[in-house]
């Protein structure tokens, strides 16, 4: 299981990369492993508002559908079309496959660093 040190992590198993005033959001290696084969992703559109702790989309595996909860509130400024077209890349490259970018950031959930998130995963595994 991979936990890149340069990223921050949420309790809902999303990773966040702060890029200036923009939050880049994806799902973690732990999340993709728990989901199994990802077959479909629903994402918001550019310009949509997202709220902290609220669902901004969902990700479907063969087995089940899971909500994607936003760790930040703000405005969606980019959506990764490549993730929509080939959702299996969330399994093969979870940290290389961002889902949305959010700007005009308001609230931000308290995020964990890699070490804390790794420990968190061990408690829920």
């Amino acid at each position, binding site marked *: 299981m991979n936990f890149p040190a340069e990223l921050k992590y949420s309790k809902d198993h999303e990773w966040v990369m702060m890029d200036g005033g923009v939050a880049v959001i994806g799902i973690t290696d732990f999340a993709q492993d728990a989901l*199994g*084969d990802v077959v479909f992703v629903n994402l918001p559109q550019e310009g949509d508002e997202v709220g902290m702790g609220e669902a901004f989309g969902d990700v479907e595996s*063969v*087995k089940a559908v899971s909500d994607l909860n936003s760790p930040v509130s703000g405005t969606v400024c980019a959506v990764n079309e490549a993730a929509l077209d080939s959702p299996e890349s969330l399994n093969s490259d979870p940290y290389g496959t961002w889902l949305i970018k959010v700007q005009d950031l308001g609230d931000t959930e308290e995020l964990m660093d890699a070490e804390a998130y790794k420990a968190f995963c061990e408690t829920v595994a």
Partner: protein
Amino acid sequence: MSELKRTVLYQAHVDAGADMVDFGGWDMPVQYPSGIIAEHLFTRSECSLFDVSHMGRLIVGGPDRLKFLQKVLTNDASALEIGRAQYTIIPAEDGSAVDDAYLYRFTDDRCLLVINAANIEKDKEWLLPIAEGFDCFVSDISGETGSIAVQGPRSRDMLSSLKGGEAIASMKRNDILSLTLEGRSMMISRTGYTGEPLGYEVFASNEDTVWLWGKLLEMGAKPAGLGARDTLRMEASMPLYGHEMGLDADGKPMPIYAVFLAKFAVSFAEGKEDMIGYEALAKQHEAFLKILEGDHSLAADLPRRIQPITLLDRGVIRAGMPVFKDGEQVGWVTSGTMIPYHVIEGEGKDAVFTGSTGKRAIGAAYMDSTIAEGDKVEVEVRGRRLNAVVSKTHLKNSKIPYAIPVING
């Protein structure tokens, strides 16, 4: 919570890195590290092994066994010759299903009834009191022996190349054979739950089950879990109790003839007069025949049927989602997910795998009987209505050795 039961292959699953889940009280592999999609595709192009040791198994014997089976099963057990198996359903008085099952006649004096693992106790509670009225016995041998389903285009060559397995090559669908493979005695049937034109189920002692699992892996087969078992049966439009049989999304029992396969599993031949639910089933049957001709005058006896559906918009359909036509709800999805397929050109021996794969959101829905193949419907997927089409089939499997995906819409 009681301890989960383990099949004789439990350690093999754990060693292979499988994700294990509670399935009907058994600790079973849902998928191996390769994942459900890879396991599904490998079954269609090569050969997969499924641990089916957890399935319920009842032995029925005694002088009146045939009379008993004719009463509690929908198919004609008297037509089942030694060395043959048949798909059958355990009916309730109202013409709904208690369970579906496979009946194997290995020997002259006893039959094996294989039932769903999750229904073992329920089925026994249903069957045993009825058996008391007959000079026969029903004994539960679930878990006493192992069983492996060997499914896919290479299954025949693999099994028949084992020493003593030559006769497997000429087995027909639903044939059963008792034989000695590499010095080990086994029972093998040409049956399965994947829709593969070539597939077998092997029954063996615990020790021989472990041996065969390892041997077939050495020969190039791969293990597949319950996840792929479900997507494969869904693609083949085979019913699963609790989805296409039993209660509908409203909690009402679904008639047996709602499932198209009932056509081959219910018999009204001489000797079936005492079958439980005979009257209800006869009415459903009459309505079924009329509906197939486009005549809905008897639809009150079979108001809804299960048909394959294909999602046309982007998304995934899942069990329980409501289905609409012209703005009115006409039923529910009974099974559905995103299912992968090989892009294949041609069929039979001339089939060519192009090397590319696709995936499609397909499944089955329990809908008003007036709905026919080709009709456009809508499925409500988490608040949005998505377009779907009622399809004849998702898979063509009439020619050996490959099941060919039928892409609708």
